[in-house]
């Protein structure tokens, strides 16, 4: 009698995902059964849930454990990314309540949605099967479409949701098609099996089926990380979405896109690193340059940050193009830093946006530095970090990304990168010009900060500085995370 091989099921490997899913479902129920307009408590419960999940995820640090017949893995790489996702979800939740109350879209389902998206991201980071990665991506994307259109009385938010949904679906199609073609060429969807097949049959590299599949996968991921020329959706979605959700989208899902992209590209196709490298080189240069140049002419701070987030994906791609361990570790560190500095910057934007105002223009910030010196200083620290000035996390992150490229011999790529950084200085400085160097044009209305936002800003600014001054430990962890 033939024995059926039972797939190895190890639930402990996906414990963080299970935990967070359960917490999210419980919160959905709590939201239904606990009456009242105030939903802030759901946010605090979510933070607790995220903390528990983080503890469970970090507990797995160490040797990698594979489960579900090699579909999911618990390794340091995935754990590092999971921590990034949890941090970005947590910070975004902290700034959410104030904004949602102000905009009258304070439905409690918001928080479970963020948590579900986080589960999706975690699956993307730990999936070692193309199908699991795809499922993770969908689990991430669908809540995000909803979150982008959360402010349903606001046209721009509606537009953001719809646009994100259409383009997201479109890009998912690319990705899935690419996965299908790759499966056709190699006979498996498991990254390890694909890798083994490519090693065993070098001829497959010239198989058009395989090449097109690979390219389509790259296109699909490029949509998710908003790399040029697949960045078109970003500015409108980022500008229209509720600001806390923009903050979340710019940090977490981008990191998740990178997590899956790196895993697929470096592991599934190790033979083709040189080809990847050329492709990523072009992608990196385009992304940095397009993002920065368009950001230069933006008056709207949110839109400027949207374009700048495209540019930041470009910097991360510089490290990716190096296709070495330093580059991968650099991306890990950068994504962590970016979560802190970018969500922090959006946190300040939340505080200064008036109700119903989608156009938080840089001109409105005139004189801000003298009215709210502390808040302006905090925003300046985030902006300097985004611009890559020492002693902040952004500088160390860029230093490691560019040095990975230089180590791989891509000195020109690093030079283009630093010149882009220099160009980006202009638009980051512009915000400070208005804050500090212009006189206020009108009376500034100040609604005051909530404790939650204060905590978010404090954590973000602290982390930005600590990662800039004593980054050693985290960098070491990032290095360990990429030793597969």
């Amino acid at each position, binding site marked *: 009698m033939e024995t059926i091989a039972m797939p190895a099921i190890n639930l402990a490997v996906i414990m963080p995902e299970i935990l967070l899913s359960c917490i999210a479902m419980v919160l959905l129920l709590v939201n239904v059964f606990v009456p009242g307009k105030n939903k802030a408590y759901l946010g605090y419960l979510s933070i607790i849930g995220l903390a528990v999940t983080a503890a469970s995820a970090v507990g797995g640090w160490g040797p990698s454990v594979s489960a579900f017949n090699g579909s999911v893995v618990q390794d340091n790489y995935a754990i590092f990314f999971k921590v990034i996702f949890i941090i970005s979800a947590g910070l975004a939740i902290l700034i959410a309540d104030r904004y949602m109350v102000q905009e009258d879209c304070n439905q409690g389902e918001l928080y479970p949605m963020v948590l579900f998206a986080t589960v999706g991201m975690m699956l993307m980071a730990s999936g070692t099967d193309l199908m699991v990665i795809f499922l993770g991506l969908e689990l991430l994307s669908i809540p995000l479409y909803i979150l982008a259109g959360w402010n349903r009385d606001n046209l721009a938010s509606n537009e953001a949701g719809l646009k994100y949904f259409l383009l997201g679906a479109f890009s998912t199609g690319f990705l899935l098609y690419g996965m299908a073609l790759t499966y056709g060429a190699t006979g498996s969807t498991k990254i390890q099996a694909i890798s083994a097949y490519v090693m065993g049959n070098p001829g497959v590299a010239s198989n058009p089926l395989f090449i097109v599949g690979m390219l389509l996968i790259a296109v699909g991921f490029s949509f998710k990380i908003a790399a040029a020329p697949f960045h078109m959706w970003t500015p409108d979605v980022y500008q229209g979405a509720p600001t806390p959700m923009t903050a979340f989208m710019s940090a977490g899902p981008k990191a998740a896109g990178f997590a899956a992209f790196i895993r697929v590209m470096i592991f599934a196709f190790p033979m083709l690193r040189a080809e990847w490298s050329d492709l990523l080189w072009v992608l990196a240069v385009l992304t940095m340059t397009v993002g920065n140049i368009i950001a230069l002419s933006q008056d709207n701070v949110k839109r400027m940050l949207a374009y700048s987030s495209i540019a930041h994906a470009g910097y991360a791609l510089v490290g990716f193009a190096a296709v070495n361990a330093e580059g991968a*570790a650099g991306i890990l560190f950068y994504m962590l830093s970016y979560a802190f500095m970018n969500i922090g910057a959006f946190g300040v934007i939340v505080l200064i946006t008036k109700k119903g105002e989608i156009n938080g223009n840089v001109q409105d910030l005139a004189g801000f530095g003298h009215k709210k010196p502390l808040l302006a200083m905090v925003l300046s620290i985030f902006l300097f970090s985004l611009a890559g000035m*020492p002693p902040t996390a952004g*500088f160390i992150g860029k230093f490691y990304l*560019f*040095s990975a490229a230089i180590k791989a011999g891509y000195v020109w790529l690093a030079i283009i990168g630093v010149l882009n950084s*220099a160009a980006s200085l202009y638009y980051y*400085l512009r915000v400070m010009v208005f804050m500090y*160097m212009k006189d206020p044009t009108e009376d500034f209305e100040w609604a005051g900060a909530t404790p939650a936002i204060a905590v978010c800003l404090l954590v973000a600014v602290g982390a930005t500085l600590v990662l800039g001054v004593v*980054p050693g430990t985290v960098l*070491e962890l990032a290095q360990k995370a990429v030793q597969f």
Partner: protein
Amino acid sequence: MNQLPLLSILTFTPLIGAILLLFVNKNSHGVLRSIAMAVTVVTFVLSLPLITGYNAPGSDIGGFQFLENIPWIAAGPFQMSYHLGIDGISLWLVILTTFIMPIAILSTYTAVEEKVKEYMICLLLLEVGMIGTFIAIDLFLFYIFWEIMLIPMYFMIGIWGGKNRIYAAVKFFIYTAVGSLLMLVALISLYFKAGGGDFSILRFYQLHLDPTTQMWMFLAFALAFAIKVPMFPLHTWLPDAHTEAPTAGSVILAAVMLKCGTYGYVRFAMPLFPDANAQFTPLIATLSVIGIIYASLVAMVQQDVKKLVAYSSVAHLGFVMLGVYALNQQGVTGGMLQMLNHGVSTGALFLIVGFIYERRHTRLITDFGGLAKQMPVFATMFMIVTFSSIGLPGTNGFVGEFLVLLGSFESGLRWYAIIATSGVILSAVYMLWMFQRVMFGELSNPKNQTLKDLNAREVAIMLPLIFLIFFLGIYPRPIIDTMAPSIDKMIAQTKVQKQVAQAAMPAAMALPPGHMAVPEAGAAPAGMPAGHPAMPEAGAAPAGMPAGHPAIPANNEAK
């Protein structure tokens, strides 16, 4: 290490002061000013033991001393350390910094009435960056301090500056950042060329890089430093920044920040990439000479006194660069002295412009005339500083300029020296002409007839500078003696490697004729100012050098 980490204390005292200021009420200007003043004075006092302690018996004469070395980041391919130390070159620049800061702060007492708190914090943070830049041995640490310096200066120009302050501030920031970012790329490449280890400059000195690599890296470093110096044609940010900056900002910018550029050449660009340095010497000397002449001519036609002083800065720094590139004992000593001199005299000039601007709110030369009758004390001080800036014998400017010209005349840069000499004359023309138009003639403008002379505070600001002008002019010996061994080391470092590399690849070195900057053998020429050390030549340790000083004729070690 048993001794106190003096350099760290020195660097971070202003930072502690800045943090302290955060907790002071922003409306109590007196308290804010006093704290900032006290902090900078304490920093200055703390820096004095460096002078007495440097080259103490038994130490590494001329080398880096007061060393502190703590591992900082070790991750991935890199090891950064918190590695500090000073030698005879950086010692005096640190002292210059700590000396200028209290003066700069004192000068703001009446000039800045708005946002005093932020202003003082900016000044103190600036001091952290400047001191750190001069004492970092670890290149990564150096880069961080170098960049940190930009941020407070950007705010100082942008918030407290003149009409075009925003343009000037953004231009200043982006201009300097572009240069430093390219340097960052070169710095990382250099690290990978050196292989594992730390970012210590001492380790990088031992490298022998191939000429092409050297060329690219030199260009990247030199560009960053040339922007900061600033050298023609990269000087255009300077007149804007200087003119728009508030007085204290201009003083610090001129007195200290520009020196970071020339210091960068002496410490990094030249000794790290000797072959490329040799190859580019004619270019840099040419740009220096053009800078001297061009800036002097432009200064001559300025309507605005502050702009005139700004252009005179460009000319003076041309002299510094020329002297440093002579690459012999007199030239480099002259260049270094000229850095200090320029710090003192141009700092003083900006203060003087600040005094008059505070009174009249104009800086146009035509608005003045005959002030000498109304303000005799002011006139005297202005005259002394003007003479120092021109380089009249007896003042500090003379010693520096003379050594620079002598050194470059003795080196392969003879023709450059001859042309640059006309810059000395031009500086007399523009300075004296300006002085005459402002101070002499009819006191016709009624607004000028009621001007008050300097008050006690302003005199107190100027006196230390005037003292230094004469001290450095008459007895520069202590400073020259402390610098000499370190300068010898720097020259040796820049030359020994060159010859090694030349022996290895003679074909690769297509040097222009007459270019080799080897010091000629022979007795020190007559006519040198007293206290000037005899040149170290042909192996004999000349008199006037501290004991144990290694006489460095480069060719002894090169095989």
